[in-house]
């Protein structure tokens, strides 16, 4: 990411000198703090759906959960979990690579992460098609598709962010200084969140 300031653009007239540099009153970078707070609100959005899950499963006390005749593909979802979890390591590798100015490693890590994420999403959609029930089939169908679908939407957004990072990585825009690779670090933090959230969704919906 080019960090060009107004001064570097040569506007030195008195009428448009740009604002003074803000004083940095905390050690954390603004963008990083921003994405962390955004993730906090995302966690609460998932919290709302987990609350609904709790009500439908525990408070409403259905005769059986999941309903009779519904078999969740735990094995496929488990493999899918492994795919997504490994993508967290590859994006971490990409970030470490660019910190050491290793552009090849950055590109390798980002591309692999993107492919792993896309595979996860592909398998997830495939699972939806073959799962044998729909969002309209009882409260179970509603909350199953809502929770996994909400997560799938987050994977999609994460993939978009990774796409942008990939474009810039292949153009050689990132550098070892923190301000020069925020474009990798911030999507990375988001990606880790998507990953951890999947583990929770997977445990709640498929395992327990």
């Amino acid at each position, binding site marked *: 990411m080019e960090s060009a300031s107004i001064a570097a653009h040569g506007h030195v007239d008195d009428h448009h000198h740009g604002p003074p540099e803000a004083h940095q009153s905390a050690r954390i970078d603004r963008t990083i703090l921003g994405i962390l707070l955004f993730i906090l609100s995302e966690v609460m959005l998932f919290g709302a759906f987990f609350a609904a899950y709790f009500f439908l499963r525990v408070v409403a006390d259905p005769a059986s959960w999941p309903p009779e005749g519904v078999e969740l593909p735990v094995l496929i979802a488990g493999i899918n979990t492994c795919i997504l979890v490994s993508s967290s390591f590859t994006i971490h590798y990409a970030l470490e690579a660019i910190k050491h100015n290793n552009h090849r490693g950055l590109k390798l890590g980002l591309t692999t992460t993107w492919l792993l994420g896309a595979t996860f999403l592909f398998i997830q959609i495939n699972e939806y098609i073959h799962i044998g029930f729909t969002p309209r089939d009882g*409260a179970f169908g509603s909350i199953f598709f809502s929770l996994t679908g909400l997560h799938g939407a987050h994977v999609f957004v994460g993939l978009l962010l990774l796409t942008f990072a990939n474009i810039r990585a292949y153009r050689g825009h990132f550098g070892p200084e923190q301000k020069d690779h925020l474009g990798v670090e911030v999507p990375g933090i988001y990606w880790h969140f998507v990953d951890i959230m999947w583990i929770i969704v997977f445990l709640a919906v498929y395992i327990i």
Partner: protein
Amino acid sequence: MAVAIRQPGWYRGAIGLVLGAAFGFCLVVGLRLLSGLDAFQTEQTGYPQVVVPLITAPFGFLFGFGAFDYWFRWAAGKPTIPEDHSGHGATKWQDYFKFNTDHKVIGTQYVVTTLFFFLVGGLLALLMRAELAQPGTQIVAANTFNGLFSTHAVVMIFLFIIPVFAGLANYVLPLMIGAPDMAFPRLNALSFWLLPIAGLIFLGSFLAPGGSFDAGWTGYAPLSTGAPLGQSFFNIGVQFAGASSIATALNFLVTIITMRAPGMNLWRMPLLVWANLSTSLLVVGATPFVAGAQFMVFFDRILGMNFFNFLEGGDVISYQHIFWFYSHPAVYIMMLPGFGIISEIISTHARKPVFGYRLMALALIGIVVLSYSVWAHHMFVAGMFSWLRVPIMITTMLIAVPTGIKVFSWLGTLFYGKIHTYSTAMLFALAFIITFTVGGISGVMLGMIPIDIHVSDTYFVVAHIHFVLFGGSVFTIFAGIYHWFPKMTGRMYDERLGRIHFWGTLVGTWMTFIPMHWIGMDGMPRRVADYASQYGDWNLLISVSAFVLGAVQLIFLYNMIVSWRFGPKAGPNPWRANSIEWQVSSPPPVFNFDEIPRVVGGPYEYGTPGARHAIMGGEGEGAEVPETKPSTVTVPS
């Protein structure tokens, strides 16, 4: 013309709006035809061909308007200038109708837009009062009445009280902490432009077949899951308004944490900054819950899901739990910034440091923590878990403690102060303390389970909410607008008209909302267009008072508009206040400061000779300025 279309702005915005709507419409109709369904679906909870364009059209408008241009350039890997200030400042009125990234312009945009919606919400209220002036139905049918009180509440909450505070803070908060702008100026502008969109969606629901949403602002399921199309407008509008306030809150938090001037540690932040810090924590943490609740209702309505359908294993009460888990913190979102405003005004006009400054700040944090644990007191009669009632009653009582700390600290600040009442802002602040305390006490009453069961869904609840929201929040909003009007416009408002507005509002508020307590205790139900004739006299008095209250607000509008244009020049610091925003010119320079100020003491060191809060840039160059020690409160005997 061709250039105008390619430039971000209203032309491109209008094209984006049409294309967005067309995209949503074609998507729905195309997918339906592909799946072998009819092109249109007109069951009352359906209408996907209307609902989906309602979501896509605003995005089309925002794309066209230029909200995402920078981000698109970044996403496509094109060179970007992070510190691009071409969208800064306003020199003519047209600049206020642009995608402007200047926090001061955005602040003004917020305040003016929300005052417009205040007017709309007020007119809806007056329509209701006209209907309620006499028993029987005269003006509106019962169904329309339901729509009126629902839209009144939604417009007032989501488009006036919550965002007007964001607007005032947008203007003064970066100045107060010595920051050149907010942390994310483009996000800030986007947050503002989401608001009028939400407002138009809410009001647009009046045009929907079946009328506007009429399940109350709470939109309880299953009433809302089976309601006509208007309810979907509510579901969608709340998402836009909620996204706007989450983004603003995130922006405030990052600004406050990372952009304070050197020397401004936590205990030197003005209380308005503290108040917005705590409000933003509430918004970021709680608002996603209302988004979640409305998503679920929306899914039930549009996709045929069964979150709240008992027959299919859904759970009806879960809606109320999830909704109130946001909406109780929301009442503090609507109150805490007002607390901050009042602290600023009282200290400035009593010429005394805020009494118990640290405890004031900690009380705000205490309210934030406690407010997450009281949501179920809205549900005492809803058939929720019976074991949850008493714990919730106790936490509800507890929250009166930090609130009481604040009230007593304001009184302590006033005690032996040199109280100046020449400013309308101070009058509203003083009246706020009394009116809000009355509303707070009826809140404690409502927190007690036996009383709550007795007065549930009566006018007592209406009286309580209007004492805390009108006598509380709206008074602080008026106080804040009067207080910062000279800063924002550079001109002085007319104090005589301000006084007339103040006394009219104060008397109008009490005359309108006090009798509601009595008829509520007597059992008059709320949210009903008709009532037993025994309540006729009181209701006539309430309606007349409400119209007086409404008429008085026209004086306020006249005062603001005329003074903005023709008022006498105000000068940088008409109230002789200490905080940083008063040390710059009125209105402030386009980039706030030439040099970031240096903070050397607390913000409220009034009455301490030589005490300074901040040293402005260029002042005392090179000289060693002594740090100001915090003063202890001295009471002259």
